[in-house]
């Protein structure tokens, strides 16, 4: 479980994140929904402690993300926006590197990678060097290496970007199973279908400020609309950037 309390972050004159609070509950997929430039990536980077908040704090299973960053990071698996792999290493070696950094090794690590490969349908390319992988294959490796340590909290920054239908479905199935196992999952997105298909709870963010929080149905009721897209436009007060 992750608690986000009154986070603020500015870059020069830009208030990228301005007083954001929400909760990522266990056994639940939370969506951070917002147009481009609304502060999703900046918020996530403060969650996994690569950026220090100007004010406010993040508690990961009770640990402060910034001052106790090592145990807090150990409790999180992160798929950032940047998903660079090591092209000369195979998919397995890429995943194993992160696995060792997350504290598992040897037979346990090999077994864990095999299980992930099956779950994410990546057996075909597991032993191949990552050079020339398709977007979908790269995304799967990035997800597998982030979660190889089996952390309680999963954070994904726009995971659907550039994925084809098949990869997207594999990813969704994987996240739903993780939720059933009681994991706390946050995924940031600007894609409506992802929200309706996956999320139990939606946090709508625009210009660094939270506009609404609730289930997709509650948000539609709150906005007085019968589909989530119209509700989203009504909630953020413009349709700028949504279709991007």
């Amino acid at each position, binding site marked *: 479980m992750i608690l986000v309390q009154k986070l603020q972050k500015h870059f020069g004159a830009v208030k990228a994140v301005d007083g954001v609070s929400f909760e990522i509950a266990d056994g639940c997929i939370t969506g951070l929904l917002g147009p481009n430039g609304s502060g999703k990536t900046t918020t996530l980077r403060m969650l996994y402690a690569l950026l220090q908040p100007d004010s406010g704090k993040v508690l990961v299973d009770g640990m402060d993300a910034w001052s106790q960053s090592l145990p807090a990071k150990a409790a999180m698996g*992160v798929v950032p926006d*940047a998903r660079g792999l090591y092209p000369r290493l195979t998919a397995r070696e890429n995943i194993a590197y992160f696995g060792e*950094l997350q504290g598992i090794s040897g037979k346990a690590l090999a077994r864990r990678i095999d299980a992930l490969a099956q779950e994410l349908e990546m057996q075909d390319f597991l032993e191949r060097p990552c050079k020339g992988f398709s977007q979908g294959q790269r995304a799967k490796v990035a997800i597998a290496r982030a979660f190889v340590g089996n952390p309680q909290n999963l954070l994904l920054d726009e995971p659907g970007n550039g994925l084809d239908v098949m990869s997207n479905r594999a990813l969704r199935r994987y996240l739903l199973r993780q939720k059933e196992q009681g994991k706390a999952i946050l995924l940031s997105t600007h894609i409506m279908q992802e929200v309706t298909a996956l999320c139990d709870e939606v946090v709508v963010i625009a210009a660094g400020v939270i506009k609404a929080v609730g289930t997709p149905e509650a948000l539609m009721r709150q906005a007085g609309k019968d589909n989530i897209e119209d509700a989203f436009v009504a909630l953020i007060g413009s349709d700028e950037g949504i279709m991007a």
Partner: protein
Amino acid sequence: MKPWIIVFRKELKDLFRDRRTMVNILVLGALLGPVLAMGLMLLAVKMISDEAEKTIELPVQGAEYAPVLLDYLASSRISVVAALADPQAAVRAQEVDAVLVIDPAFPRQLRDGKPAQLTLLSDHSRSKTRIVRRRIETAIENYSANLGNLRLSLRGVDPSITQVMVLHDRDLSKKGSDAQLLAFLPYLLIIGIMQAAMVVAADLTAGERERQSLEPLMANPVAPEQFMIGKLATNVLISLAVLSLSLLGFAAGTRMIDLGDTGITFSLLSIPVLLLFLSPLAFFFAALMSFVGAFARTVKEAQTYLGLLVLAALTPSMIQMMLQSKVQDLELLLPIWSHNYLINEVLRGEPLSLAQWLLPSAGALLAGGLLAALAGRLYRKPDFIF
């Protein structure tokens, strides 16, 4: 396992998979040095022996005034060729190495017992002509001395009375020392290490940013400095491997080619000594390159920066090669400057004193540690990660 060891093992594996980078490192770092060195040595040896052995062709203006002198020169393998139309122009145009001009007054001056006038035209700025010039001068001085001794003997005077002093010239350099030829060896060794450090640093720091793998990497539960330490260790190991290879290359090279009687030997014993002595320098280079390379966004950009850095860092070596001055006291603390000088001492067969071991190592470790700490801090900066 310590995180930095995980990073270290991964980086080594990753580097060895990259044929191009490895060939770059090995060919440029380890082989180019010895090959270049052997080539230069062969050339130098050949030039020296050629000039010392071969018959010099010497144009003489006014050969008819000194037939006996010219016979004497012929016995010293200096053969007289026909006079030139414009001797000065020929020397300037490097068509000939030297021209001897005999004054028409020469026979009369000789007969009267006055100093007889000869002029040797040559270009002192050309190193190749130095040996030719010296041989001609020596031959003429010998002839002159012989005649002088004869004149004294005829007057009943012991010729040795003109020899007021005799200066004996004894060479005290150890076996295996031709300073001239050895001067560029440290330079080549240092280039080799730096080249390796540069290629590895560009791949390990800028490469990680270019591939966009730094942010996911830093999201792992590992202190940022551990990444820097692991990458630095990789760099030091590869640099030392390149150094070992090039030392072995030098050793093999000096045994394979005929270096004549230059007295150059490259003792196998100096290899471990140099490896140990240069390890702190390799650390310094790795830290320097990692720090500077971290400011580049792409590998290409990093290679441009670091290439310039290599040139800048070589300046002390080049100055040393020319000055060949002694480095002592606090100067020993300066990395590169002191190392360049002391590599030469080791190659010459001189044992290093305690200060010569400790001060350069302390200097390199201190400077390297400072740069490594700065590089480590970068790994905590958002501007560096994203």
